[in-house]
């Protein structure tokens, strides 16, 4: 593997990608919402409710819908604390996965489809890089930043959550073991999914915008996971997170094989 060439490709993609407002804005805004705004609101909500004299009953009602093992896990917290832990440690978990998915998806849209749209692909195909090096470089361009943003976000989220929830919790309660699995094992796989989905989309989409919209579909499973957990159908325990990660890696592998089949310069150039 010609790593110098691959690194150059990644460097180029990242420099170019960050100048696309369609990429850099969501890349900054979404993580800020997920990692800072939402946890702060959630942690402060019970106090706001309390100040308005609303009963903590609503939270308790919400919790009765949660899966039994989750209710069991939350039972040794006060109702107020249980609400915060339920929201910050469980409901938010699938939302966290949106970040690696989206970051990888958007960057890959620019790097796979945007490259063709900007007509810079041909020069690249005439370089000595092999087809394998080209795809590895393009994948790393999307995957590395997605994982980096997720991990950075994980730390920021932990700090925000603990700080905002301090008045209620009175101690550091985050990260839970499940979150560590989520960040280290599931998030990189989710980044992989956002990326390979885009490789498949890139065979069809003509423009970055089109690819971006088609690629957005990968967020759907995450939304299902959020709903599933609130309605008590699933419960993200350490075991479930490990299995989820494994499942994602397998899906990544299968989709990558599918996507890489079309990724040969011979076919890429004929589709320019």
């Amino acid at each position, binding site marked *: 593997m010609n790593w110098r*060439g691959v*690194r150059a490709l990644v460097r180029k993609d990242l420099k170019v990608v960050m100048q696309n407002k369609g990429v850099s804005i969501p890349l900054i805004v979404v993580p800020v919402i997920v990692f800072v705004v939402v946890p702060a609101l959630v942690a402060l909500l019970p106090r706001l409710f309390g100040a308005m004299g609303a009963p903590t009953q609503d939270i308790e009602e919400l919790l009765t819908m949660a899966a039994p093992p989750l209710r069991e896990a939350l039972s040794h917290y006060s109702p107020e604390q249980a609400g915060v832990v339920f929201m910050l440690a469980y409901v938010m978990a699938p939302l966290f996965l949106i970040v690696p998915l989206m970051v990888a998806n958007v960057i890959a849209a620019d790097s796979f489809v945007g490259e063709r749209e900007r007509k810079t692909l041909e020069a690249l195909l005439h*370089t000595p890089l092999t087809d394998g090096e080209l795809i590895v470089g393009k994948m790393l361009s999307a995957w590395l930043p997605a994982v980096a943003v997720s991990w950075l976000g994980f730390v920021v989220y932990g700090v925000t959550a603990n700080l905002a929830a301090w008045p209620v919790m009175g101690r550091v309660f985050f990260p839970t073991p499940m979150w560590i699995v989520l960040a280290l094992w599931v998030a990189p796989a989710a980044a992989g999914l956002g990326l390979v989905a885009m490789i498949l989309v890139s065979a069809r989409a003509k423009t970055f915008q089109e690819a971006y919209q088609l690629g957005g579909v990968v967020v759907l499973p995450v939304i299902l996971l959020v709903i599933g957990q609130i309605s008590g159908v699933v419960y993200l325990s350490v075991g479930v997170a490990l299995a989820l990660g494994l499942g994602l890696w397998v899906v990544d592998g299968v989709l990558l094989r599918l996507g890489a089949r079309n990724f040969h*310069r011979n076919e890429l150039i004929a589709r320019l």
Partner: protein
Amino acid sequence: MSDPVILTHELTRCFGSLVAVNRLSLEVAQGEVFGFLGHNGAGKTTTVRLLNGVLAASGGQARVLGLDPASQGTALRRRTGVLTESPSLDERLTARDNLAIFADLYGVPRERVRRRIAELLEHFELADRADEKVGGYSKGMKQRLALARALLHEPDLLFLDEPTAALDPVAARGVHELILRMARQEGRTVFLCTHNLVEAQRLCDRVGVMEQGRLVAVGAPQELARRYVHNLTVEVEVAPEDTDTALQALAGLPVAVQPGSPRGQLAVSGVRREAIPALVAALVHAGVAVYGVAPQEPSLEDVYFALHGEGVHGQREVSP
């Protein structure tokens, strides 16, 4: 005599039912400037892609720099430089970044990268704007930058797809000199696709003419002229007061006089070489004082039009 740098045998590429390159057999020697001519869609760009191992052939064989483009593309592309038809530059990056990235992609020795980039920027007169985004460059500047990028790794074989299409005459001349220097002094081989016949005539040792994917003629420009252009243009100088008599005498011959010639200077076209004595005899016979008869060397342009069956200067209409 060393092995040819490009050698193809019946190289073919189809797109669906369209045969873009049709059984192309070609040989280009080391150090040669080879011109590749043909109408739009004749298959020039497709040929470059085939030869550089970027597009797979549907049939036939090729060896370029002794390598098989299909199976040894990576090794081959390390030694070839390509100026693609559209400059294919990253407009969101600076000129310097564009070059630096390709220096890494082509594996230019690290310690040489900075010097080489500075050298090329200087040579192509881009040095003072090297740190601007390429998006703001003029067409010609982009073209020059793309050319610089093709030369970064000092390739043995250069594919230039219409290198002067966007250039002003001064810049175009600069590129011509560069091409000649690379071939004559540095022994590199240049495969030049162009629509500019004057350029091809000036630069190329040999040219190939493509028509709908087929190579219809190949050879040195003069050789092709001799082979394909049978109707010459002859400049005839006569006494000005004899002009009208001369025109009358010529009207009886299967030739055409270009309208608008000054009195005494007749440009006679559609003349076969062997018909020149008869033409002079007819003039003399009519009592015209003939001062000079000069057959013009046919140009590559004449060859091109002769091959594509279209008359130049109305030759076709008047010649038998």
